[in-house]
C-alpha cells in the first residue's frame, strides 16, 4: 500500500513537472482538436513535418495547407533551399479557417515564449494591432534598406505596414478585394451590362430579378463584411475611407449612413440561403447561371480556373465593384520576425527570400496572386493577374477591412458582430450606432 502511494505521488509530480517545464527544442505543433470551419478549403488536410533538432532549422508558421497555396509555398521553399543550403526549412502549418486555428496555436506558443522563426500574417493592422503593440515583433527597417525594397514596393503600402515609423512585415503577395465577377456570355443572355455605380447596379438587379436570376451571390457572414468594405469604398472617396481607420472620418457621419443604406438595399438582391454557403459555393452560383454577379477577392479567379474557365470572353469576366473604379482595395500575406526568434539569422534569410523577386515569382503564379513588388516577371502570370499587376501600379490603393489590413482584430470582431446583428434585424440606425461604439471600444476613435 505504501509503495503504491509513493508511486502515485511520484507520477503526479512527474506530470506536474511536464506541465510546467518549457520545451527547449522545437516541437511539431499539435492540430487543434476542434478545427471549426469545415467548409473551408484550407481545412482539407493537416500537414506537419518532423522538426530536425539542429540549430539550422528555420521553422515557419503558416496556414497554407490547401491546393495552390501549399504548392506555392513549396516553390518558394525551393528558392530558399538553393540560396541558403545551410538552413533546413521546417513547415509548421496549421490548417483551418483562414488562419483562425493557426492564430490560436500561435497565441499559446507566444505565451509560452516559444515563438517560431517566422510566421505568416495579413499585412497591416492584423499584425500591428495584435503582435506589434504587444512587443512581439522586431522592426525590419534594416532589411528593407539593405535589400532596396523601399524602391520596389509601392509607396502607399509602406505606411500601412508600419507602426510609429517602423516597418514590421515583408509582404509576399497582393490580393485585390474589390472585384465584381461574372460570366460575359451569361450577361449577354440576360441582356444586361456590367454596372459601374450602385445606382446602375440596382437598375440591372431589377431586370435580373424579373428573369428569376439572383442578382448578387453572397456567402457566409465574413463575405458580408467583405461586401460591406467594398460598399464603403464605393460610396466615399479613398481619403474619407482611410479616415475611418485612423479616426479622422466620423463613423456616425452621412458617408457611413449612405453606405449602410446601399448595403441594406443590396442585401435585398442576394440569395436567401447566403449564410450556409462558403465563398466558393457563392461563386459557383455564378458559374451555374443562377446568379449574375459575385463580389469576392481575386482568389475567386483561381476558383474559376479550377472549374475550367479561362479569363476571356468565353470564360469569366471581372470589373471593379461599382463605385470603386481606379481604386485597388488590397490585402497581403506577409512574414514577420518575432522578438527572440528561434534561429534569428535563418529567419532573416527566409524573409530575404520572401521579399525577393525570385521568391515572389515562384510563389505567386501558383497561389494565384500578384507579387507585392512592382517588378514581377510578367511572362509568368495569366491575363487576370496581368490586369491586376497593371492596376496595382496605376490605381489608388486602399486597405481591406475583412482581411486584416486596416483594422485590428479586436475592432474587426466588433464590426463583424454589428453586421451579424444587422443581418437579423436590418436596422440601419442601430448598425451605425454599433459601428460608432465599436470604433470607440476597439478602434482608433478612443
Amino acid at each position, binding site marked *: 500500500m505504501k509503495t503504491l502511494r509513493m508511486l502515485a505521488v511520484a507520477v503526479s509530480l512527474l506530470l506536474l513537472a511536464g506541465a510546467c517545464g518549457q520545451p527547449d527544442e522545437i516541437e511539431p505543433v499539435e492540430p487543434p482538436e476542434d478545427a471549426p470551419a469545415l467548409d473551408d478549403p484550407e481545412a482539407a488536410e493537416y500537414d506537419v513535418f518532423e522538426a530536425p533538432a539542429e540549430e539550422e532549422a528555420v521553422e515557419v508558421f503558416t496556414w497554407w495547407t490547401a491546393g495552390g497555396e501549399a504548392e506555392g509555398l513549396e516553390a518558394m521553399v525551393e528558392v530558399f533551399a538553393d540560396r541558403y543550403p545551410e538552413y533546413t526549412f521546417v513547415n509548421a502549418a496549421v490548417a483551418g479557417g483562414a488562419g483562425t486555428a493557426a492564430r490560436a496555436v500561435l497565441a499559446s506558443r507566444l505565451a509560452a515564449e516559444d515563438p517560431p522563426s517566422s510566421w505568416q500574417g495579413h499585412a497591416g493592422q492584423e499584425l500591428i494591432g495584435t503582435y506589434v503593440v504587444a512587443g512581439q515583433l522586431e522592426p525590419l527597417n534594416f532589411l528593407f534598406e539593405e535589400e532596396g525594397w523601399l524602391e520596389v514596393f509601392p509607396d502607399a503600402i509602406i505606411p500601412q505596414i508600419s507602426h510609429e515609423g517602423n516597418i514590421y512585415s515583408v509582404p509576399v503577395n497582393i490580393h485585390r478585394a474589390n472585384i465584381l465577377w461574372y460570366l460575359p456570355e451569361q450577361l449577354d443572355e440576360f441582356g444586361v451590362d456590367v454596372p459601374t455605380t450602385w445606382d446602375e447596379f440596382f437598375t440591372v438587379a431589377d431586370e435580373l430579378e424579373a428573369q428569376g436570376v439572383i442578382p448578387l451571390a453572397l456567402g457566409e457572414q465574413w463575405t458580408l463584411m467583405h461586401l460591406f468594405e467594398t460598399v464603403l469604398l464605393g460610396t466615399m472617396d479613398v481619403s474619407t475611407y482611410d479616415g475611418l481607420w485612423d479616426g479622422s472620418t466620423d463613423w456616425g457621419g452621412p458617408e457611413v449612413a449612405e453606405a449602410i443604406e446601399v448595403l441594406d438595399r443590396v442585401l435585398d438582391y442576394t440569395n*436567401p440561403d447566403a449564410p*450556409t454557403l462558403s465563398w466558393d459555393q457563392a461563386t459557383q452560383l455564378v458559374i451555374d447561371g*443562377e446568379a449574375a454577379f459575385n463580389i469576392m477577392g481575386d482568389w475567386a479567379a483561381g476558383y474559376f480556373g479550377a472549374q475550367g474557365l479561362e479569363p476571356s470572353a468565353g470564360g469569366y469576366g471581372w470589373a471593379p465593384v461599382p463605385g470603386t473604379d481606379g481604386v485597388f482595395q488590397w490585402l497581403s500575406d506577409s512574414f514577420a520576425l518575432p522578438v527572440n526568434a528561434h534561429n534569428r539569422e535563418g529567419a532573416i534569410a527566409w524573409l530575404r527570400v520572401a521579399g525577393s523577386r525570385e521568391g515572389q515569382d515562384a510563389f505567386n503564379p501558383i497561389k494565384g496572386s500578384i507579387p507585392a513588388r512592382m517588378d514581377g516577371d510578367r511572362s509568368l502570370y495569366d491575363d487576370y493577374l496581368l490586369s491586376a499587376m497593371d492596376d496595382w501600379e496605376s490605381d489608388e490603393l486602399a486597405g481591406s477591412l475583412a482581411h486584416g489590413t486596416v483594422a485590428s*482584430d479586436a475592432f474587426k*470582431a466588433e464590426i463583424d458582430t454589428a453586421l451579424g*446583428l444587422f443581418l437579423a434585424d436590418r436596422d440601419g440606425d442601430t448598425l451605425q450606432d454599433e459601428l460608432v461604439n465599436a470604433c470607440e471600444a476597439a478602434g482608433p476613435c478612443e
Partner: protein
Amino acid sequence: MVAPSAILIGIFVYGFIAWSLRVSMSDWQGLIPSYNFTGLDNFAHLLFNDRRFRVDIRNTAVFSVAFLGGATTLGLLLAIMLDRKLPAETFFRNVFLFPMAVSFIVTGVAWRWLMNPALGVRVSGLNLLFERLGLDFLINQWHMTSPPWGMAFVAIPALWQMSGFAMAIFLAGMRSIPEELREAARVDGASELQVYRRVILPLLRPAALSVVIILGHISLKIFDLIIALSGRQLALDVPAIYMWTTTFDANNFNRGAAIGILLLLSVAVLVVPYLWYARRQEAEL
C-alpha cells in the same frame, strides 16, 4: 490514495477556475496578460450592454427548451415501446443508443447536408426527399428559419443523437420498478394506459431528473454541433461560440473568461441542487 488525484484536480480544475475568475475581473485584452482589477465590469457589460450576448441567451433558451422537451418525450416513448417486451428488444435498444457513440462534429456535418436550406433547382437533402414524395408543404428553411426559431431546428440533430440516451435511462428506471406494483394496479382494474400514467411515470421522477440534468448541461455548453452545422453566424450564436471568437479572434481574454464563468455558474445552478438532492436521497436509504 486520493491525495494525488485531489492535488491534480485541485490544480487543473479548481486552480484554473480560480484563474479564469481572476482574468474575468481584469482588463486583459491583447496578447500581454494584464491583471488590473476591474471588479464586475466585464460581467456588467455582457449582461446589460452586449446585444450579442443577449442573442446568445435567447438562442440557448430556445435550443434548450426544444432539446430537453424533445429528448424527454422521445426518450420516454421509445422506452415505453421497448418496455412492452418487443421481440428484438436488444437490437432496437442498440439501434437507438448507437448515435450517441458519434461525435457532435460528425452529426453536424451529416445534418448540414440533410437540412440544406437551398430552394429552387438547388434543393437537396431532406427538402429534396419531401419534394420527390410530393410533401411540398414540409419543405422549409430548417436552421435558416428567421431567428430565433432556426435554433429550434438545431435541436433536431441533437435529438437524433441524444434521445437514445434518454431512452436508456428511462428504460433502466422502468425495469427497476417492481413487477408487483403493476400487477397490483391491474388487479385493481387499471387499464394499461392508467398503469403508465398513475404508477410508472410518477416512479420515473428520479430518472427524468437525471435526464434533464445531464442533457441540460450539454445544451448550455453546446458548441461543436453548431460550428459543424452552420459555421459561424450570429443568427445561431451561443455563449460558447462567443467565448471562443472573442478570446482568440479579438484577443479579449477578459471577456472570454467572463463568459466562461457565466457558463460555469449556469451549469452549477442546474447541477448543484441535483447533487444535494442525490446526497439527501442516499442519506435516507
